[in-house]
């Protein structure tokens, strides 16, 4: 069914949703910040 194939093709072209160095930097920074908060929370717990 050509219409469905075109829609699937359009959808697959949208992946990956974000692909940039800046996003990776921001994402990893957010990751590190959360891990830091978890670390601090463990300290508090102790």
């Amino acid at each position, binding site marked *: 069914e050509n*219409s469905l194939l075109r829609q699937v093709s359009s959808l697959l072209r949208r992946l990956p949703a974000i692909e940039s160095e800046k996003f990776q930097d921001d994402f990893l920074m957010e990751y590190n910040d959360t891990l830091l908060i978890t670390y601090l929370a463990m300290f508090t717990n102790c």
Partner: protein
Amino acid sequence: MDIEQKQAEHIDYFVKQASNLKGTALSTVIVEATSHPSLFAFSEIIAASNVLELEGTENSASLDLLRMFAYGTWSEYKSAADRLPQLVPDQVLKLKQLTVLTLAETNKVLPYDLLMQELDVTNVRELEDFLINDCMYVGIVRGKLDQLRRCFEVQFAAGRDLRPGQLGSMIQTLANWLSTSENLLVSIQEKIKWADTMSEIDKKHKKEVDERVEEVKKTLS
């Protein structure tokens, strides 16, 4: 999805026309289809038996033109212009719109320079007008024009007709996506189990510690 819904009716109409006509009349239908402002898909029309029969006849150039609109770009047309019929302005516009879709297939960020080169546009203003009026308002693309970085960030682009051989790669991508999602679900399930186990261990440990504390208190008192 919206663009497919919009053009479904037109596809049906032209497929019916193509099924009932032959020869030169069919070439006229092909010109009409490739000029239609709301039609961007031509696989169904190509698949019509009468259209396929144009191969090798005096009207085979119309079939080649239809294939160009289904799979090709404006630059490809220009290089093959001697073998193909002359285009009317509406067809030129259509082919340029389809070129944008093809470019958006490979890159999400389209530099203005590349677009101007591929679309034979001389200045940025003209390019932006084309992208806004003839692409975004029509609904075939959605995106952001970044004038500072001189590029067009594509968020959505309608799908073009599939070239032979493209299906395999699509199936592979979908299979990868499916396996990634399944692995993710399995990981989430494992993490849930782990969290439950750790919670049980924690409760048990707390209970043991509380019992020890009570014991020591009793001993002291």
